[in-house]
């Protein structure tokens, strides 16, 4: 026998269950605390998906119980239930699911999650998973105990029976496994459910911890998220292999019909246009296209601009609910949110939503917390490997009033960032769904979303600091300075000093002061106008005198007015500069009234009346 033939005998197909049995880290079961979190997360995701599809407000009960040396994980929902024949494959067959072939946003995608939990449970505790499900109040509940036959990747039913169950409908799953329960950090069952509650404000989630302590994450809205509809693939970014596959297996007989019906956002006119550019007969059979023709068709896709995919395949959280979710879990002074328009990567529509919370009870030190979500599922692990984190790191936060040591990286300060990516197909870096891959289109959209909320934050902080400065100055001027002046006059036994000039300086005001002295039987008057602001001030200064003044410098315009004369000067004084005006009147002249300034706001003038 030839060596190749010898070797051929050893070749053997590997069951997917066996593969995952040996590579459990890929599915997120690499450590004892993490295994518990992943199991709970997968079960809760399924419950949320099922409730949303059935239009039911989710009410999910999670309990973690110590059972000997193992932990028991119980997740129960009020969803539509599962028909008995579907229960074994859903829970005990890997890669079995309803969503893999559909282009629609959902939490689960591949049909691995919960069956991986069942596999992990059976590997570590050797015990079967118990499932109860009921699909209608007048039907009995179905109970079964399941294990996975790993060499065949097929469910094995250990026991099955009809039972009574008090719930009208819903599903309950119980698994026992090795694990370790931690609290008090984000990477915990508590933390991941808290995050899930933020982006699923329509759900009520109850958690009973091993010590018996119960936490309820209450729902804040009765509105279900908008239902996401399945759509056809979008032509933008589609790959050649995918296109050839679609061409070969389509039932459509004509190319133009194929184009219109297989892809989203392509109408009759666009289909004609595509055929023309690819130099293909629109009436040809799609299956008959050869490789070179498929390449031409693909390049035609790239030449024309196809409109964005329809939004209704996606279900964003909405700005209003992001705000409500952040308000619910943090005490904040300021919240900014944004929803980006739908965009496309590799033919998959996606949409980015960003929320930013600031101030309140968030700690001032330390890095900003980033809450990452993909299709409403919190991403807890591998923050550093995620496109969302990378986009956060590459924004210049210093431009937006947040500190960022070294000018790059995650910013620091009392803020929290929430980024949600919704897509028919989230490009995760691995099957454990911890991190979103760095697709350029996604990075760009997250970047734009972050900058939008950051601009809102900058505006808010700018306003706040102006207000704070104003308040501080008001306090000095109204409360402190008069008291200092009063005390000084007490101590020194002198009249109270005039605080006007100091007030003008502190407020950056225009200060008008007038001195007069007797000279050779006449009164010499000197007006000094100081500009303490950092802007040029242009205005008119009026002196209402009982007579025409003499020796006026600089010259004034004089207008007779009833019983006197209005003298006025047009002045323009630069920042920090001053102007001096002098004139003389007769010794018997009436004491002129307060000088008058025309053309400025009253708040910025000290020592003169403003008209």
């Amino acid at each position, binding site marked *: 026998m030839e060596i190749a033939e010898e070797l051929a005998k050893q070749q053997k197909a590997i069951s997917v269950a066996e593969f995952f049995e040996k590579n459990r880290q890929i599915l997120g079961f690499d450590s004892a605390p993490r295994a518990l979190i992943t199991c709970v997360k997968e079960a809760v995701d399924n419950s949320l998906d099922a409730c949303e599809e059935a239009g039911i407000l989710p009410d999910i009960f999670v309990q973690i119980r110590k059972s000997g040396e193992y932990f028991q994980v119980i997740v129960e929902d009020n969803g539509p239930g599962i028909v008995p024949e579907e229960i074994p494959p859903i829970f005990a067959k890997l890669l079995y699911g309803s969503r893999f072939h559909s282009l629609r946003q959902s939490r689960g995608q591949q049909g691995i999650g919960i069956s991986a939990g069942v596999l992990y449970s059976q590997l570590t505790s050797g015990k079967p998973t118990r499932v109860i499900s009921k699909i209608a109040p007048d039907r009995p509940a179905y109970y079964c105990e399941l294990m996975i036959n790993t060499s065949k990747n097929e469910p094995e039913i250990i026991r099955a029976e009809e039972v009574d169950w008090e719930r009208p409908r819903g599903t309950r799953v119980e698994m026992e496994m090795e694990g370790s329960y931690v609290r008090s950090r984000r990477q915990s069952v508590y933390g991941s459910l808290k995050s899930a509650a933020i982006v699923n404000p329509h759900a009520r989630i109850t958690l009973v911890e091993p010590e018996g302590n119960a936490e309820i994450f209450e729902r804040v809205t009765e509105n279900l998220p908008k239902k996401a509809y399945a759509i056809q693939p979008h032509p933008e970014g589609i790959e050649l292999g995918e296109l050839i596959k679609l061409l070969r297996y389509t039932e459509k007989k004509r190319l133009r019909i194929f184009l219109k019906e297989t892809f989203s956002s392509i109408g009759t006119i666009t289909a004609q246009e595509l055929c023309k550019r690819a130099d293909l007969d629109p009436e040809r059979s799609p299956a008959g296209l050869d490789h070179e023709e498929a390449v031409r068709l693909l390049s035609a896709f790239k030449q024309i601009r196809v409109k964005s995919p329809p939004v209704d395949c996606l279900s964003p959280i909405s700005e209003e609910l992001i705000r409500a979710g952040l308000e619910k879990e943090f005490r904040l002074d300021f919240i900014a949110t944004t929803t980006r328009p739908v965009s496309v990567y590799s033919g998959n529509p996606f949409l980015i939503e960003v929320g930013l919370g600031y101030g309140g009870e968030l700690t001032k030190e330390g890095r900003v917390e980033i809450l990452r979500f993909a299709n409403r599922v919190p991403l807890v692990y591998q923050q550093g490997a995620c496109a969302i984190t990378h986009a956060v790191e590459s924004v210049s936060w210093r431009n937006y009033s947040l500190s960022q040591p070294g000018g790059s990286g995650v910013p620091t300060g009392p803020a929290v960032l929430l980024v949600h990516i919704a897509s028919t197909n989230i490009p995760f870096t691995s099957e454990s769904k911890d991190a979103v891959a760095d697709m350029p289109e996604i990075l760009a959209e997250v970047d734009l979303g972050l900058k939008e909320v950051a601009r809102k934050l900058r505006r808010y902080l700018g306003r706040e600091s102006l207000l704070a400065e104003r308040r501080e100055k008001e306090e*000095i001027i109204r409360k*402190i300075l008069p008291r200092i002046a009063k005390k*000084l006059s007490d101590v*020194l036994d*002198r009249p109270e*000093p005039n605080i006007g*000039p100091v007030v*003008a300086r502190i407020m950056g005001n225009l200060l008008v002061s007038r001195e007069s002295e007797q000279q050779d039987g006449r009164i010499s008057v000197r007006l000094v106008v100081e500009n303490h602001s950092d802007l040029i001030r242009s205005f008119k200064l009026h002196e209402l005198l009982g007579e025409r003044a003499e020796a006026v410098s600089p010259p004034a315009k004089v207008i007779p007015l009833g019983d006197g004369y209005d003298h006025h000067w047009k002045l323009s004084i630069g920042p920090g500069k001053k102007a001096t005006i002098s004139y003389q009147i007769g010794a018997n002249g009436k004491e002129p009234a307060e000088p008058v300034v025309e053309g400025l706001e009253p708040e910025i003038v000290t020592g003169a009346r403003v008209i």
Partner: protein
Amino acid sequence: MSSERPGTDPRSKRAEENLLRLAESLYNQFQRGVVPHISLPSRTKSNIEFSSRDDVWVYGDQETMRSVKTVRGAKTLLKTVHLTELLIDEHLKNNRGSTLREIYYISENWDIAKFNEQAESDRLIEDMEIVTNLHREDFHVRPEEDGAAVFGPLRLKEQTRRGEKQMHCQEDVGEAGYQIPFNVDNIEFISHDAQLVMAVETGGMYARLIENGFDEEYKAILVHIKGQPARSTRRIIKRLNTELDLPVVVFTDGDPWSYRIFASIAYGAIKSAHLSEHLVTPKARFLGVQPSDIVDYNLSTDKLTDKDLQALKSELSDPRFANPYWERQIRLQIDLKKKAEQQAFAGKGLDFVTKTYLPERLAEMGII
């Protein structure tokens, strides 16, 4: 220095004048339209420099400005003016005084000028000392803590509120010794028969030395410094050293905190560097317990804690300890990882410290 007619003694007069000058400068700033402010030397470790003229540590040239442009600055100036009024009208004009703590409580009535904590009023009084170039004793402000007690062959005269009192610090005092007043400058030394001044950290050792008659046998003036020395304690040590020309030795526990006690007597403290010339005794010498004594006399010890070690290491980078003697001793102690109390000598018998250790150390230092 009679004080029968309030406000007439020349020191109070000068204090009042200096305080009024401070108020006047603020008043004039208002009149001239200048934003009212006070400049002060900045009181940080980085602004402490060695004055080779007096061999003490004093403030350098860095200044901080306190102006009414900020709420904090404005409030501090308001408090300064309130305090000025208190010191002039209540203290100096009526020849009365308050403790630092009392001043903090008095400010309760000052509305928004009230001190938030005593540390704040204490700091402001130090600032006023710097601005007016006076000492808080001149404003009749006294500390809470007791000053030192003194025991030894010294005759002195104290100006008290109830007249002049004369006493001898061995014959006219009880076992605890003569309690010095907070204002040491009210004392006048008359005569003495001493050959050295010994500052002693703990009450236990102070009592042991008196019981054993050490003060008589070695003609020593014993000063009980009671932990971190108060200003008055440092002042009397300084005066005994300069006016009576007596050598000063400091006898403390053998741990890093006690070395700092010695440093504040001999080199000065950061918080009161403006008073260094007044309070610091650069000629004071460290007697013990030295780390090398732990080895030489085989003393009972405790292990150094992490905090002790940290303190020793920070002393190695403290400019005040930057000389070969301290470097050798501190490094030795870090190696030993041990510390010893003064009273550890009792393990060798109650007379050991006075019959053996102190005579040996004093001879080694060339004092007897």
